[in-house]
């Protein structure tokens, strides 16, 4: 059942992105930035945590989960350290994505030529 939920949620997020791309002049960069902000907003009131329980990996794959994990780590630290904790915990959960993307693209770009 969680596979169906994952399909529906991830598909809907991508469908909204495609509609924005088709009917406005925004570029993919705008759309992904917008979705990160939406993800951060949804997790401010712990809505996104409930979506993750419902859709599992379907909620973790779209870029909205990036915003969610940014603010989730920040708020977790902020519970112990106050406002300073926001800066301490911002990358607690996101470092996985950022570090692996940078490492893989750096080392792969040494070996591969751009295809054109």
């Amino acid at each position, binding site marked *: 059942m969680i*596979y169906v939920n*994952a*399909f*529906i949620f*991830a*598909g809907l997020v*991508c*469908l909204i*992105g*495609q*509609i*924005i791309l*088709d*009917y406005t002049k925004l570029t*993919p*960069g705008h*759309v*992904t*930035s917008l979705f*990160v*902000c939406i993800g*951060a*907003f949804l*997790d*401010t*009131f712990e809505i996104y945590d409930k979506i993750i329980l419902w*859709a*599992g*990996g*379907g*909620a*973790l*794959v*779209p*870029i909205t*989960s*990036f*915003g969610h994990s*940014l*603010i989730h780590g*920040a*708020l977790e630290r*902020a*519970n112990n350290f106050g*406002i300073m904790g*926001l800066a301490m915990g*911002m990358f607690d959960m996101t470092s*996985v994505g950022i570090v*692996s*993307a*940078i490492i*893989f*693209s750096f080392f*792969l*770009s*040494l070996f*591969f*030529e*751009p*295809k054109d």
Partner: protein
Amino acid sequence: MEKNKYKRLVEKHTPKENSLYHGLLAFIAGGMMGVIGQFLIDVYSSLLHIPSSDASSYMIITLIFIGCLLTCFGFFDKWVNFAKAGLIVPITGFAHSMMSAALEYRKEGMVTGIGANMLKLSGSVIIFGIVSAYVFGLIRLIIFGG
């Protein structure tokens, strides 16, 4: 030539953007990415006996690696032309934007090419994510008290 006639001619020859078709493709491709993500979480958590919260980190690393590798081989750009937002919105799009920037500027050298330009496309995601998360976190701390 009259303006109206010219306008009609232009309309006739511009390719029709079928947004319903594009939307359906994006929905299916994005949904498949979600299913793959959930499948990888299940595989990792059952094979390595780890909780699914840790397995989701493994899943993200795997998807980013696949996205980078497919970009290197040139498949990803073709698929993005086909599925559009279905592949840009998932985390693979983040990996793709970083990888293609690194590939594009590798000729200009390690520091001034790869180092300076790798975050050219994906930087906006990181910047806006951090700014919005900080602002929303402040609002939550100040108004709702944590």
